C-alpha cells in the first residue's frame, strides 16, 4: 500500500507540473506565430512605449481600441498580452514545482524557464524602447530557444520520463546515431539565427554579406534534411516509437520548411533565376503586405521553431533512453534504479495480476 501511495502521489504531483509545461508549449508556439507576424508587418514599433501600452498598464489598455484599431497595434499589443500570459503560467509552474516536485534539477529548470521568459520580455521591451533592429533579431532568436526549453521541460515532467525507458530491453543507440540526434537541434538553431539575420537585415547591409548568409542558409537547410533522414534510418528500428516517430516527423517538417523557404523568397523577391522554369514564374508579381504572403513568411518562421522544438524533444528522449539503457547494460544484474523501481512499482500498481 505504501508503494502504491507513493506512486500515486508521484504522479499526482508530476501531473500538474507536466500540464503546466504542456500549457506553456501550447501558448508559446502561437506566441511565436504572432511575434513572427509582428516582424512580417514591421509592426514591432506600433506601440512605442514599454512596459505599458500608450501610457496604459498592459492589461488595462482599452480592449475596443486594441481590437478595432490598426492591425499593427492589434498584433503588437496582442503579442505583449500573450507574452504576459506565458509569464504568468511560468510563475505558476515555478510555484507548483517548488511545492510539489521532488527532483531538485527540475525545480531549477522551472526557474530557468521563468528567467528565460523574463529575459525575453526585457529583450522585446528594449527593442521597442531603443527602436533597435539588432535587439529585435536577438529577441526573435531567443523565442525559439525558449520554446525548445518548454518542450524539454514537458518531456522531463511527463509520465514516461519516470517509467517508460527502463522497461526496454534493447541496446543503447550507437554514439554516431546520438551525434546525429544532437546535430539536428544544433543545425536547426543555426538556421534560425541565419534566417533571423536575413529577416532583420540592417538597412546599410552590404550585398556580399547578405548573399553569403543566403547561400549558407540554403546549403545548411539541405544538409539538415539529409541529417534528419540519416537519423531516422538509424532510429527507425530501435523499437521505441517515441523516438522513431519524431525522427520521421522531422524529415517531413524540414521538407515543408524548405518549401516554405522557397515560398518566402518568392513572395519577397520574386522567383529566383534558377527556378524560372516554374510555370508562371516569369510573370509573377510580388505584392507588398499581401496577407497570404505574410502567412507564408510567418509560417516559415514558426515551422523553424517547431523543428527546433521537435528535435530538442527527440534529443532529450534519446539522452534519457541512453542513460537508462546504459545503466541496464552496465549493471547486468537487476539492481533497480530509482526509476526502474518506480517503473516496476507502477507496473505492479497498474497490473495487479502480475504481482
Amino acid at each position, binding site marked *: 500500500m505504501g508503494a502504491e501511495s507513493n506512486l500515486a502521489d508521484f504522479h499526482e504531483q508530476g501531473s500538474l507540473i507536466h500540464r503546466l509545461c504542456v500549457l506553456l508549449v501550447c501558448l508559446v508556439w502561437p506566441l511565436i506565430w504572432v511575434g513572427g507576424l509582428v516582424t512580417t508587418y514591421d509592426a514591432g514599433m506600433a506601440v512605442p512605449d514599454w512596459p505599458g501600452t500608450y501610457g496604459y498598464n498592459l492589461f488595462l489598455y482599452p480592449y475596443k481600441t486594441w481590437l478595432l484599431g490598426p492591425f499593427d497595434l492589434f498584433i503588437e499589443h496582442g503579442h505583449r498580452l500573450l507574452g504576459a500570459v506565458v509569464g504568468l503560467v511560468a510563475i505558476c509552474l515555478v510555484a507548483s514545482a517548488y511545492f510539489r516536485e521532488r527532483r531538485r534539477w527540475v525545480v531549477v529548470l522551472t526557474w530557468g524557464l521563468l528567467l528565460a521568459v523574463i529575459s525575453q520580455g526585457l529583450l522585446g521591451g528594449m527593442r521597442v524602447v531603443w527602436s533597435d533592429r539588432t535587439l529585435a533579431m536577438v529577441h526573435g532568436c531567443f523565442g525559439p530557444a525558449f520554446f525548445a526549453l518548454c518542450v524539454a521541460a514537458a518531456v522531463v515532467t511527463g509520465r514516461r520520463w519516470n517509467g517508460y525507458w527502463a522497461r526496454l530491453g534493447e541496446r543503447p543507440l550507437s554514439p554516431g546515431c546520438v551525434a546525429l540526434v544532437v546535430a539536428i537541434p544544433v543545425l536547426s538553431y543555426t538556421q534560425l539565427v541565419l534566417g533571423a539575420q536575413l529577416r532583420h537585415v540592417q538597412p546599410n547591409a552590404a550585398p556580399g554579406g547578405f548573399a553569403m548568409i543566403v547561400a549558407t542558409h540554403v546549403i545548411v537547410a539541405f544538409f539538415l534534411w539529409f541529417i534528419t533522414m540519416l537519423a531516422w534510418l538509424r532510429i527507425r528500428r530501435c523499437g521505441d516509437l517515441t523516438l522513431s516517430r519524431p525522427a520521421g516527423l522531422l524529415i517531413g517538417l524540414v521538407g515543408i520548411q524548405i518549401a516554405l523557404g522557397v515560398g518566402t523568397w518568392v513572395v519577397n523577391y520574386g522567383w529566383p533565376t534558377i527556378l524560372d522554369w516554374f510555370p508562371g514564374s516569369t510573370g509573377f508579381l510580388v*505584392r507588398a*503586405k499581401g496577407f497570404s504572403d505574410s502567412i507564408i513568411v510567418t509560417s516559415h518562421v514558426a515551422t523553424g521553431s517547431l523543428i527546433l522544438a521537435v528535435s530538442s524533444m527527440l534529443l532529450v528522449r534519446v539522452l534519457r533512453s541512453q542513460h537508462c539503457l546504459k545503466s541496464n547494460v552496465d549493471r547486468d544484474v537487476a539492481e533497480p534504479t530509482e526509476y526502474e523501481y518506480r517503473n516496476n512499482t507502477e507496473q505492479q500498481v497498474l497490473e495487479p495480476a502480475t504481482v
Partner: protein
Amino acid sequence: MRNAVLIAVCFILGCDARIETFLPNRVFSLSLEKTRGASAERATEDARRVVQELYGTPDDPSWPLPDNNLADLQNLVRSSGPVSSEKDGTHLGLFREHCVVCHALEGSGLGAASVFQNPYPRDFRHGVFKWKSTERGKKPTRHDIRQILVNGIPGTAMPSFALVDPEDVDALVDYVIFLSTRGEVERRVIAAAIDELDYGETSPEDGWELDSRNEGEGGEVVHEVLERVHADWAETQDHEVPVPSFSDLTGKALAASIARGKEVFHGKVANCAGCHGPSGDGSLPTLDYDDWTKEYTTRIGLTPDDDEALKPFREAGALKPRRIMPRKLQGGVFHGGGDAASLFRRITQGIAGTPMPAVEVVSEPNGKGLTVEEIWDLVRYVQHLSTSR
C-alpha cells in the same frame, strides 16, 4: 535602473549602428578618374559634404529649394529614418520598410538583396527611369512613378504596393524623387568640381571649393547644378508624350491590322525581330548592357568580362555586369505595362537607359520612320504575340 539594464544588455549583445550619412558615389568617382585622368577623391568627399548640407541625412532629410513643390518635406520625413508606426496606424520609415533591402539607403540599387535580382534594382542617382510617359531623355512624372509603385513590375522583385496605404505610396514617390535628385546633384557636382573647379589630388584655391551656400565659384557651380536638376524634374509635365486615339478593332479589321503589324515588326525601319527574334521569343543572343552598367565598363573602355580591370569598381560597390536581354514578347509579361498607350510610347521613345531604340513618327511612309497607323498596327501585333506562346 531600467536604462542601466538596457545599456548592460546592449553592451553584451550589440546594437544597431547609427546611420549618420549617405554613402558617397564611389563607383561614379572611379569612372570619372578613368575618363578625366585626375583624382576624384577630394571632389567626392567635398561633394558628399555639400550634398549632405543640402539634402540632409538618411534619418533627417531636407529639401534644398523650399519654393519647389516637387517633394513634400513631411512626406520625406515620414519615408526616412527607422521603421515605426503611430497609434493611428501611420507608418514611418517607409523607405526602409519597403525599399531599402533592394534599392539601398542612397537609392543606389546596391541593397543587401540586389545581387539576387535580375534585372538589378534601379539606381535612382542617374535620374534615368525606364517606365514613364515622358520623352526618352526626360524625367518621369509623379504619376509614372506612382503607377510603377502601385502596379509593380511583373517578373521582377519590384512589388506592387496596391495594398499599401495610398498616402504611404505618395510619400514614397516623394522620397524616390528626393533620392534621385540628391544622387544626380551629387554626380554632377563631383563632375563639375573636376571639370570646372580644378579639383584633383588637392583642393582648389580659396573661393573655388564646393560650397552649399551659393558663395564663391564653388557655391555658384553647386547651385547651378542644383537648379538644373530640380528644373528637369519640375518640367516633366511639359514633356509627356501625347498618344493619338487608338481604335479597338475586331474581326477581319483586327486580323488585317495584326498582319500589317507583323510586316512592320520584321521590316527594316522598326526591325524589332533583330533583337526580339523573328517570333518575338527574345531568343537572339545579345552582347549589350544597360546604361547603368556601361558607365563603369564600355563607356570608359573596360570590357565587362574583364574581372581584373573591374576589380576596383566591384570593390567600390559596382555589381557584376550582366547583359541586358530583349523582352520575350510571347509571354504576355511587359515590365512597363502592356496597354496600347504604354506600348505606343515605348515604340516612339524607346526605353531610357537601355539599347531599345526609338522609332521616328512620320506623317507619310518614307522608309525612315513609322506613321501613327503603322505604330498602332505594330502595337496590335505585339499584343497579339503576347497572347501566344
